[in-house]
């Protein structure tokens, strides 16, 4: 039931066309993978409840289309989002190069400045890598984003990505508390600054 859910969080997934945004989402919500998923038109929407540090959060996840033409639709989705996952494809440098455009987009449309951003490098199962892990790390560090590399195909790192994002959002009470004041649920705070606890092998950069 919804009663023990601490809060509902709005998460937005953005990034170039074909980087695997929908695949990442489907792996997370349904634990499935389809190599030829039809292109997302406009936006898709999924809900999943996850438990982080004993706190349950309901995630309302908006999966956006990557093609530029649909971008006029997205401003309304940025509004009110607490977390944004920015995805690129480690086997296509162009999707990494365009990250700057997406950050501009973020800055333009996000209504709050404490929103949690996460950079995700997808398709690490593939061999023809074009973007080095350190490049991703560096970019994330420069823009104060969490960072993770994962593969929606092999499942590697997917769960971890969402957990870290949610953990970080929950650690930023200003992001979600005001909307949930009447819930009366006390957050069991853990010591902060213990990034990497759940996700051995990956590191998050603040």
């Amino acid at each position, binding site marked *: 039931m919804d009663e023990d859910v601490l809060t509902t969080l709005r998460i937005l997934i953005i990034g170039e*066309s*074909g980087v695997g945004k929908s695949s990442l989402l489907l792996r997370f919500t349904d634990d499935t993978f*389809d190599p*030829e*998923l*039809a*292109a*997302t*038109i*406009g*936006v898709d*929407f999924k809900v999943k409840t996850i438990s982080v540090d004993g706190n349950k959060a309901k995630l309302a996840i908006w999966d956006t*289309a990557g*093609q530029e*033409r*649909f971008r*006029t*639709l997205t401003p*309304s989705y940025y509004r009110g989002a607490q977390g944004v996952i920015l995805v690129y494809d480690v086997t296509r440098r162009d999707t990494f190069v365009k990250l700057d455009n997406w950050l501009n987009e973020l800055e333009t449309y996000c209504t709050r400045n404490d929103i949690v951003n996460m950079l995700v490098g997808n398709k690490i199962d593939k061999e023809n890598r074009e973007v080095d892990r350190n490049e991703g790390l560096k970019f994330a560090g420069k823009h104060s984003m969490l960072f993770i590399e994962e593969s929606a195909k092999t499942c590697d790192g997917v769960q971890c990505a969402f957990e870290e994002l949610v953990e970080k959002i929950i650690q930023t009470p200003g992001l979600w508390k005001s909307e949930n004041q009447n819930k009366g649920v006390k957050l069991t705070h853990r010591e902060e600054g213990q990034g990497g606890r759940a996700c051995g092998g990956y590191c998050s950069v603040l």
Partner: protein
Amino acid sequence: MAAENSKQFWKRSAKLPGSIQPVYGAQHPPLDPRLTKNFIKERSKVSTVPLKNKKASSFHEFARNTSDAWDIGDDEEEDFSSPAFQTLNSKVALATAAQVLENHSKLRVKPERSQSTTSDVPASYKVIKSSSDAQLSRNSSDSCLRNPLHKQQSLPLRPVIPLVARISDQNASGAPPMTVREKTRLEKFRQLLSSHNTDLDELRKCSWPGVPREVRPVTWRLLSGYLPANTERRKLTLQRKREEYFGFIEQYYDSRNEEHHQDTYRQIHIDIPRTNPLIPLFQQPLVQEIFERILFIWAIRHPASGYVQGINDLVTPFFVVFLSEYVEEDVENFDVTNLSQDMLRSIEADSFWCMSKLLDGIQDNYTFAQPGIQKKVKALEELVSRIDEQVHNHFRRYEVEYLQFAFRWMNNLLMRELPLRCTIRLWDTYQGLLMLLQNLPTIHWGNEEIGLLLAEAYRLKYMFADAPNHYRR
């Protein structure tokens, strides 16, 4: 008036197989409020059940069981508002229902067709004339269609219900013989198509309840405005247009790797493998190349919109329908290397032109900010708020915006929402609508007609604008 009458028709014929599903009547007339009411009731009972799957499967089942019921209507059924049609009594409905059931039980008993028909297919069938040319020599085209070249390959067969195989409204080979009514309908189409100057208005009317698959390719070419009504000019036009298309290819296709077209081509290239990903036909390299060429040429010739995701889906029905001129059944598993270069070129060029005609009418769906879609979604919202306030308020309460779910409906003309064969059937009707809207029969109008129109406009304005509660309870 007309709207009321047709509404009556749908109400009256609710017992007719094929008429109770809101999806089929999605374009016209508007949703029957009673149906949506029930739907809501059901919905609230099982609100946590994954409704989507349940709906999909039952619709699927429904479509399968009633896809041959489209031709049941009276032969003069084109005029839905005619009193004759409305008096269609329950006897007829029952008799037809029985007929449908009987046909299907026969279908089921029929053993699976063997896959080893390869050797039975004479080489000559490889050069079936396209029916646009062969339209006049009916018998030959008939026999060709009865002996399709199919399954000459060993592409993996999908274990699920074929999406395209039963695109026909009526009998494919292996199905029971045509009913008298189906024959009469087909005959009527043939008469229209072969007359010196095809009466497009009449053809459009006939197409509303579905086009028999034998004549669907020609009918679509005509109704989309690609082919002229004059029979003598058709062959030449076809030839000229096909050449023109391949002229474009020669002239422009190499530019796909140039810098200013790179983004367009890359996007198309990413999207093609994931167009109809479940249907083996579309995984073949030859087919994918055809799609890439069609989409690229269209995109660079329409710079205001360019290529937008979703347009790739819109090529599919045309491709399948024009391919069906050469392949009788199991289109979705057909190996196109069995077709000659010429056939493939014809299919490609015709698909391009018909798709272009379709897009001409809806280009503002794909230009910057997609105003066409915004308008249509707004209209949908307006409509729902008028005819089903309960649903509308439900959306509002949960902050569901129409754009969030209806955007894709409009962007892909419902293609993602329906199985391909249903889309094809739906487009029989679209083509007619398109034809009507682009060629309104107003040439001979005089003051009297304008007067009538204004009177009707006044009535509608009075009904809707001055009395918004009209449809509410």
